[in-house]
């Protein structure tokens, strides 16, 4: 395919047609911040932290999804884009436990976002779910990046054990009628834990180690329910 030439923050770059603004900027060595985006998951443009300003386009565009076009003039850090990023970060901090999300913490510092911008704001507080020997689900840390649902479904595993529940601010990740994980189609492949960016999903052994629990106790606590049958004894 023919190359497309565009300018990003005044610098000219040529990339193959179909390239996203995010990837074109990377080619120029410019990092547009992303939160929900993952190279191996379907991009959905959820977090909008990667929004950029494009000449002649009224709303800001998500760089992770928007394709380049010939002559496009992109500004990755216009005042509007920065205001949106900062406000989104402030709203995330107002609602979600980001204590184990170092990348987001760094963005908050980079954009000088105020962690206490929204006093008296309702937080998305939900109890920790410890219902299986493999991983913990602490959805108070969940930023709804969708990665876990996607890898459980068509992006990787085709297991369909989890999906969304509720809507709006009260959206969550859930199982069929909130069943514990072992009663779902979950095969404990660990893909969801692997892509979680905020520690909302965490291997149980890691969590117990962090609490300073001894290895023996951890092994005891995380043994699978079913015992493997040995062929001979």
């Amino acid at each position, binding site marked *: 395919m023919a190359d497309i030439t565009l300018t990003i923050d005044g610098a000219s770059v040529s990339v193959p047609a179909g390239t996203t603004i995010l990837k074109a900027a990377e080619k120029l060595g410019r990092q547009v911040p992303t939160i929900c985006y993952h190279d191996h998951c379907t991009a*959905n*443009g*959820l*977090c*909008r*932290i990667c*929004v950029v300003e494009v000449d002649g386009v009224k*709303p*800001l565009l*998500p760089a992770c*999804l928007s394709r380049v076009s010939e002559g496009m003039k992109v500004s990755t850090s216009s005042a*509007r*884009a920065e*205001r*949106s990023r*900062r*406000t*989104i970060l*402030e*709203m*995330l901090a*107002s*609602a979600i436990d980001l204590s184990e999300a170092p990348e987001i913490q760094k963005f908050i510092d980079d954009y000088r976002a105020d962690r206490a*911008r*929204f*006093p*008296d*704001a*309702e937080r998305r507080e939900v109890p920790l779910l410890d219902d299986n020997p493999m991983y913990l689900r602490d959805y108070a840390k969940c*930023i*709804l990046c969708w990665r876990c649902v996607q890898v459980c*479904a068509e992006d990787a595993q085709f297991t*369909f*054990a*989890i*999906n*969304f*529940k*509720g*809507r*709006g*601010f*009260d*959206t969550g990740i*859930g*199982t*069929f*009628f909130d069943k514990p994980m072992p009663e*779902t*189609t979950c095969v404990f492949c660990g893909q969801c834990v692997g892509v979680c960016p905020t520690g909302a999903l965490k291997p149980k052994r890691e969590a117990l180690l962090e609490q300073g629990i001894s290895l023996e106790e951890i092994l005891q606590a995380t043994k699978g329910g079913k015992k493997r049958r040995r062929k001979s004894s």
Partner: protein
Amino acid sequence: MPAIPVMSDSELDSLRSILKDLTPQGRSALLPALQAAQQLYGWVNEEVAKEVSVALRVPLADVFGVLDFYAMLYRQPVGRTVLRVCSAPVCALAGGDAVAESLCRHLKIVPGEISSDDSFTVEHAPCLGLCDHAPVVLANEVVIAPADPGAPASTCAPSKQSAASFVGGDIRLLTINCGAGRTTSLNEYRQRGGYAGLKKALTMTPESVVAEVKSAGLVGRGGAAFPTGIKWEGAAKAPGQPKYIVCNADESEPGTFKDRILMEDDPHRILEGMIITAYAVGASRGYIYVRGEYRHAFNVLSAALAEASDAGLLGANISSSDFNFGIEMRLGAGAYICGEETALLESIEGKRGLPRIKPPFPTTSGLFGKPTVINNVETFCNVPLIIERGAADYRKLGTERSPGPKLFCVSGQIERPGLYEVPFGISLRHLLFDLAGGMKPNRRLRAVLMGGAAGAFALEKDLDVILSFESLSAAGLPLGSGAVMVFDETADIGEVLKRLGHFFADESCGKCYPCQLGTRRQHEILDRAAAGHALAGDRERLSDVGGTMIDASLCGLGQTAPMAVLSAMKLWPEMFK
């Protein structure tokens, strides 16, 4: 472990026979299946949801995700009758809260609870589209409008009544058969010249039908004002079969009730518009998606579809031509976001009503990934008129850049709330004072909310603004869906904003962060401002949250959710610190 409800085979038999018929449709029958299940059992329990999952081959977690998304689907028991009390601004001004309180007191419950005899649940509802009869209660499928806060017992045992809306205006083209308080039958519609547009269209080439609509300058009446002919042309030229025509009858914008009246009073005009559209773009299948709260309109349209099919106006070889087109009905289940066109398509496909990323646009990749024209009810109603009269004649109505007739829904503190049909180009003053009777005695106008919840406020000084796309846009006022909510000096604008804030927070789908988080933060700030407890810095917070929603939200809901608030901040800066 909590006991799983065990239902006997005989209890599940009627569901299974319904599911058997729906199975071939797969996931796209998910909403109808869940609605049928709820109709049978009052709510959808685990076992019932499992039956649906197996029959339609939809993963359990996905069934649950859909069940939990829509406000009118229940995964726990509710009263046999759900009393939905409208909590939108106009109903609130007319005493909606008092209605809800008196019902709760009468039934000895709080909202969301079930009365002791399992008969009733009281809920707050978003705008029910009956603003001209405020305050309104929907008792399952029965409309009580207006509801009397002093008579909760009669609200609980309503006699079957349908509220007749006042329909007036300078012209009566789209509404010629509306306002009599009953449905126009196929025979009556035909006697008054109905289906003449279709007859004429079938003598034209599809390309010339598209060309006619293009030169008529028709733009969408749902709120986005996209040129209809260009949309049709896109779908006509797009590769892929079958092509779909979808009627967006998910009218849910607070203050808007025009589509409900068109559907209830004159359903065949909508069908005729859809059939002509299908012919023009080469589509063979259509859907009408009616919001869940409009059960009566849904029933009326379903009956009209049967009439039209029997008369050979739908189905194979329409009017003895070689053109085939069929329409299926879909009932929404309580989600404002499904009025967003791509969310509506997702909902038809049996998914949570989340808006899609655009591009691709529905014209090339719409329903089931196929080329799709999706238009609003009022837009379709313009089509027979354009074809029958010809574009040049149609353009004699309205202004150069806003041709044609337009429906306005006037509600709130005004003498004669109702639906008004006018040519584009009249003034707001004419609409409110000549047609709708002006302010109530000894009351002065405080503000007019134009365009619905996602609208902006006009003041006394703006009354001479011309109602056309170009003039309104120059005045910074949106036309939106044609909602015109009038507030006099007794109205508390802070309270109005609080209602709007609640509405958007309840109706955000939760997909993109600016709207998912921003609608909640906005609602919290508006709540404390209305209570007189605004915090220092709230004005800046609202302006940053609002600006971020406008600039960075994924769809129109988030992009317009702060509009009325930002407009009020400019007009009444003293409301916020």
